[in-house]
């Protein structure tokens, strides 16, 4: 009972501290909202800005006849790039010269320039053997801003798709001519007509052809038919929540050192209340503070960011596990510090480091290989893994191992902090 009274006093003290509240509640919500917005409106979809692109068609420029120019391979590429269907992705302007196109990129007016070489049509129409080798191939150059990667990647993909289609028509023509020659057709005019017919047929079929296609989706949990796709803001919020729960735990934990320096802790020790009960009360306070913090953040995420947290049972277990882990780590980082300032600086450094290698800052972005292993050396990394499982529609099976691992870390942290405090206050 006395332990609970001490815990309640510290709990109220923490939740009356504006600076602590800003750190515990405002900061994670701000970051989750901002980073969620960074990756799509409302955090539900990934979208990028239309890529400013300049295109110069030296292939069509080689002919003065406008009708003939429209039949050139270069014109097909320009038509695709300027297609209204791609307006959301590409913002294309046509340049008259190669220099003009390059200058647009050099002067930061465009992220990429597409330079279509002169003679591209002739190269594609050449009815030679396909063993020429790619060293003789005409180069369609994508001249790009070196600081941009995604935008020029999209331009390259679009141009590559058109180029592949032109190559397909050429391959159809060559295959038809060579196969017909193999069947005994040797008349040049017949072979020429066959080549044109095959290329044309390819172009017509390519429009309608669906063939093999990719259907992107999120990973599904075992035994699940439907794949859950969490919104980005909720994923970011989980990372930020765990990170700032560590700071949340260190605030009431530091009260032990504050009270030590002010002498009020020793005054408490003179009362009949055993020291273990006093320290137990402090432990409970730290746990309750971060538990309340995580519940508030989860509710705020649900109400303000539209987060869907998944099955209630595993959700409660993960929340409790997170609060225990944060409390134990908060107490440990304070247990060996001598002053509140030292505790603040040391714990900040440890929390930032753990968040860095545990994946709190980067979430699911770009993690893989060795980093998936490295994050498992941190309690927050395990906890994030459990949350990922839940957000992707998993349940008990997906959180069992992460929760077990996280609780193992928690037990060690509690044991160590208790040992440090016992030595200090024995």
């Amino acid at each position: 009972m006395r332990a609970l009274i001490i815990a309640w006093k510290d709990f109220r003290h923490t939740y009356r501290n504006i600076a602590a509240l800003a750190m515990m509640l405002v900061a994670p919500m701000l970051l989750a909202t901002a980073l969620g917005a960074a990756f799509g409106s409302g955090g539900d979809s990934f979208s990028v800005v239309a890529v400013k692109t300049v295109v110069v068609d030296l292939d069509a420029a080689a002919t003065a006849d406008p009708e003939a120019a429209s039949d050139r391979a270069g014109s097909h590429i320009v038509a695709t790039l300027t297609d209204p269907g791609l307006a959301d992705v590409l913002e294309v302007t046509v340049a008259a010269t190669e220099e003009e196109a390059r200058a647009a990129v050099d002067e930061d007016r465009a992220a990429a320039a597409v330079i279509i070489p002169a003679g591209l049509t002739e190269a594609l129409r050449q009815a030679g053997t396909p063993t020429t080798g790619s060293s003789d191939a005409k180069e369609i150059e994508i001249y790009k801003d070196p600081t941009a990667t995604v935008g020029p990647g999209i331009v390259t993909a679009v141009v590559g798709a058109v180029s592949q289609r032109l190559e397909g028509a050429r391959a159809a023509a060559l295959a038809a001519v060579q196969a017909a020659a193999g069947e005994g057709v040797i008349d040049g005019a017949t072979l020429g007509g066959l080549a044109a017919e095959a290329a044309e047929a390819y172009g017509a079929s390519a429009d309608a052809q669906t063939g093999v296609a990719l259907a992107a989706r999120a990973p599904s949990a075992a035994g699940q038919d439907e794949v859950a796709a969490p919104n980005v803001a909720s994923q970011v919020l989980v990372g930020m929540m765990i990170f700032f729960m560590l700071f949340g735990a260190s605030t009431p934990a530091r009260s032990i050192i504050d009270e030590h320096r002010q002498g009020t802790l020793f005054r408490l020790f003179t009362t009949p209340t055993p020291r273990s009960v006093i320290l137990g009360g402090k432990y409970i306070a730290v746990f309750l503070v971060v538990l309340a913090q995580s519940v508030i953040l989860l509710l705020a995420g649900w109400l303000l960011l539209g987060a869907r947290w998944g099955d209630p049972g595993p959700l409660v277990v993960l929340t409790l596990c997170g609060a225990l882990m944060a409390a134990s780590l908060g107490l440990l980082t304070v247990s060996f510090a001598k002053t509140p300032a030292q505790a603040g600086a040391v714990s900040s450094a440890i929390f930032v480091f753990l968040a860095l290698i545990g994946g709190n800052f980067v979430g699911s972005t770009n993690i893989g290989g060795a980093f998936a292993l490295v994050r498992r050396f941190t309690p927050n990394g395990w906890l994030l893994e459990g949350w990922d499982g839940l957000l992707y529609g998993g349940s008990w099976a997906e959180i069992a191992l992460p929760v077990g691992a996280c609780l193992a870390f928690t037990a060690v942290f509690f044991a160590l902090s208790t040992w440090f405090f016992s030595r200090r206050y024995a």
Partner: protein
Amino acid sequence: MRRVWYIAAKELLQTRRDRLAALFSVVLPVVFTVFLGLLFGGFGETGAFPLAVADTDGSPAAIELVAQLQAESLLDVRPMGQPEVEAAVQDQEVAAGLVIPEGYGAAVAAGQPVELPFVRVETSSGAQSALQAVQAAITRLNSEVLAAQVAATAVGASTGTPPDEELLDSTRRLAAAALDAPAAEVTVVASGVTEKELGGFDQASTGSLVNWTLFGLLTVATGLAWERRQGLLRRMTAAGAGAAQIIGGKMLGMVILTFLQQLLLVLLGQFAFGVDYFASPAALFLVMLSMSVLASSLGLLISSVFRSEQAVIGATVIIAQLLAALAGAWFPLEITGAGFQRVAHILPTAWVVDSLHGIILKGWGVLDVLGPLGFVWLWIIVFFGLAVWRFRPA
């Protein structure tokens, strides 16, 4: 002026003796740079993107597709069962996964459309790159199949005999050979003096520089709050130091400290990770100086507004994280939406990141960085003005 220097020298001496300061100024920034550098460079710089592939069909066409994927230099194909693919993607052990469904071979042979599930975490940029590489192989496959069918039909019509399996095999081989020796190739060339593209360490090193310069002011800002609480600032004024001298000394101390911290990160980036900071030393100096003054005026403002060390730590952590994350220090702004990019460029840190990228990749000189830095200095004036207005020694 002598008093300003004494106060600054005291800050430097105090920081040199503080082992915790070294943690924020040296150890964590270096670890952060290496970690993020490997993460961003990730699979791209170190080789191929790991792709988990589950072939649940087992037909010759499926085996051929797997072989084509294995031939893609950007992919590191890891065959496994479908449940393992889902788990590997979710645990981020691979960049993405591909499932070849039952009936794939039959559908391809019949010319029927077929969809292959591409399993990925939506926000993963590694998955985006893997998707492009898989898409390239699929497009190549579609072109080959269609070209063979069209050619066989044309030849059949020309010779008056319907295309049989032998003719289809023949045209497929011929189409594949034609596609293997393309008449046109798409090449990507980066502009700028070095023709180098933004690499993992270019992003991580510049991002770390901004992130940790902001964090670096934590020690001095908390120290200032502590000195005020202990009455030391008041004692300084009693000893004859004016508020302007105290502010000047503290600012100078913070500027020197954060500049030295940046210098360390610049040297680390230049010599350990090949980030070409020294492409324009004069422009680099201007950017570093601006960043130092920005961080220092922000630190001064935080310690002027907040009274306790705890509040200063909290405010510094929050503001430093926001300014770094929103400015593109953690990830390139290019991958964010239009609105976010506009908001980010209201912040001074985004312009610092832009200037650093300009120097290392585009050959920017002093004249080029003056524009972005002008915006940074507007913020410095605001921060510094507010800090001076709010500063109270007592």
